[in-house]
């Protein structure tokens, strides 16, 4: 049963998403100011609003709300809080919290700018048990990779001579020698790999091919191989600049997979219909 009228009022939907993004932004600022209780409260409230929007989207489409970029980005906006908690369990430093909240802001603001169609109908090939785990694994992997890339960018900016001159002490709780970036990428890798490989198993069931070199598949594999290269460079003990370059290239490939492939009409495939 679908209720497409739930998403008819785009202004209201954007206001709700904007409030969720605003709360996450406040959380990011409060994490910097070390007001952890209020930061967590704000982050949780923002995420709960995103969760409520996921439920609304599910009612609107009458199905799993992963049918288009708007629905996918709302889910992406939701996953940052649970992942921040997961990383906090693995690493007690609080350097990552600001970045998780900031990444949630970006995802939710991005959802505001996407078309809010509710007429998604899962074609028969998408009616597979693999659909939800495949997309959710990618969302989790992308979320972790986005935080790692944002942290790397933050470190690159704050380590410049100009920044050091203007702000003798880092404004954010970021230790340039922090090892949390590889830890986050390491957590992202199983999810990215699961997304890729579950897609192979699903494609084998649906079409009789494990792999078809579809542009989305190819870019997804390029992303994974860049991250593998990152870990091999780390093990080889190369200079950090090569690893950082590899990290940025991997994230650029990830953005190409997630966004650019969808924007170029001849690259968007029928298999990945949510991209339309």
């Amino acid at each position: 049963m679908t209720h497409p009228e739930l998403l008819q009022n785009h202004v209201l939907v954007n206001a709700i998403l904007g409030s969720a993004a605003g709360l996450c932004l406040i959380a990011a600022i409060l994490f910097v100011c070390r007001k952890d209780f209020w930061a967590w409260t704000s982050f949780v409230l923002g995420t709960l609003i995103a969760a409520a929007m996921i439920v609304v989207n599910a009612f609107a489409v009458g199905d799993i709300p992963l049918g288009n970029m708007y629905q996918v980005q709302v889910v992406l906006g939701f996953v940052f809080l649970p992942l921040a908690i997961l990383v906090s369990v693995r690493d007690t430093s609080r350097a990552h919290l600001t970045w998780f909240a900031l990444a949630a802001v970006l995802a939710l603001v991005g959802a505001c700018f996407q078309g809010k169609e509710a007429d998604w109908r899962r074609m028969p090939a998408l009616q597979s048990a693999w659909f939800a785990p495949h997309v959710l694994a990618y969302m989790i992997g992308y979320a972790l990779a986005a935080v790692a890339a944002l942290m790397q960018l933050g470190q690159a900016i704050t380590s410049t001579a100009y920044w050091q001159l203007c702000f003798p002490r880092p404004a954010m709780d970021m230790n340039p020698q922090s090892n949390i970036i590889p830890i986050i990428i390491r957590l992202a890798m199983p999810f990215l790999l699961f997304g890729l490989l579950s897609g192979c198993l699903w494609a084998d069931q649906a079409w009789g091919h494990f792999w078809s070199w579809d542009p989305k598949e190819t870019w997804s594999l390029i992303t994974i191989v860049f991250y593998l290269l990152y870990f091999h460079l780390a093990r080889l003990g190369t200079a950090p600049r090569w690893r950082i370059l590899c990290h940025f290239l991997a994230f650029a490939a990830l953005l190409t997979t997630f966004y650019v492939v969808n924007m170029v009409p001849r690259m968007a495939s029928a298999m990945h219909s949510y991209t339309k």
Partner: protein
Amino acid sequence: MKRFLLFSSVLLLGAWIVLMLAGAVPQVGNAQLAVFRAPAHVALCGLIALACLIAAPWPLNLRRIPTVFLHLGVAITLFGAAWSYFKGEEHDVSLPVDPNQRHRSLRETSHGGMMGMNAKPEIPLGFALTIKNFTVEFYPVIKWDAWKYQENADESQRWKSLEPLLVAKDGSIKIGDEIISAAKLATPPMNSRGELQISDTLIVRPVKTAKRFAADLHLAEGTQGSKDVVLEVNSPVDYDGWRFHLSSYDDSLQYSEQTLVQIHARREPGAAWITFGIWLLIIAAFAWGFLPERRKTLLVGDNK
């Protein structure tokens, strides 16, 4: 040895990225796929599999078990893929729905071929396949596209697209104050293109989306005896070494008087190895990502 293996891995992974980038942007007629079918790419994948096999147990350490299985998973998957690439076969065929027609061989889909031109060779199956029935179920229509006529606009912009009209629970739609009933929407005076003009508004019947389609197959004369199965998307059917997938269907009757069912038939000897390799990779990846022992090793490497 460890450094040599790591350095070789970096080179191989770098080369693979370059090759994939060459084939990552689609060209007319999917010409970019030639990159992936080129001997250089096949050889590179072979080298990567070999490197994984050599690197997997080096250095031998219980803590490295997830890493070992990750490398083995890659090697096994690529081995299975190579076996299927060299020894497998796959065909896309269009078969008519006809309970009286037994297909003992397949011929690749080619519309020209169906009309007697460019006929492709027949592939013997070794058994008989009949498509007894075919059913399609559509999603209900939830919205209609609408266009409004603007008399004073330029000729090219006379019809302005409006917000889609949502279908109410009783199947009717509302245009301004006028309610168009479900009965009126389902019957003439709708024209052959599925359009209905109401005063200055043109509403257009949306294209129906298939929710489910299925073919009833009868397989006989093979070693597995006679059996009736339902072939659906995501539910392939195995019989005597062949696997059949339902791809699509064509009921436009453009090339045949019967509905044509599009089936992908394949024999892929490496499929089991690929599946095993993939599951090994998935399990090993989660162990590698979440077990803390490896994290320490990474941190040591990362601080150099």
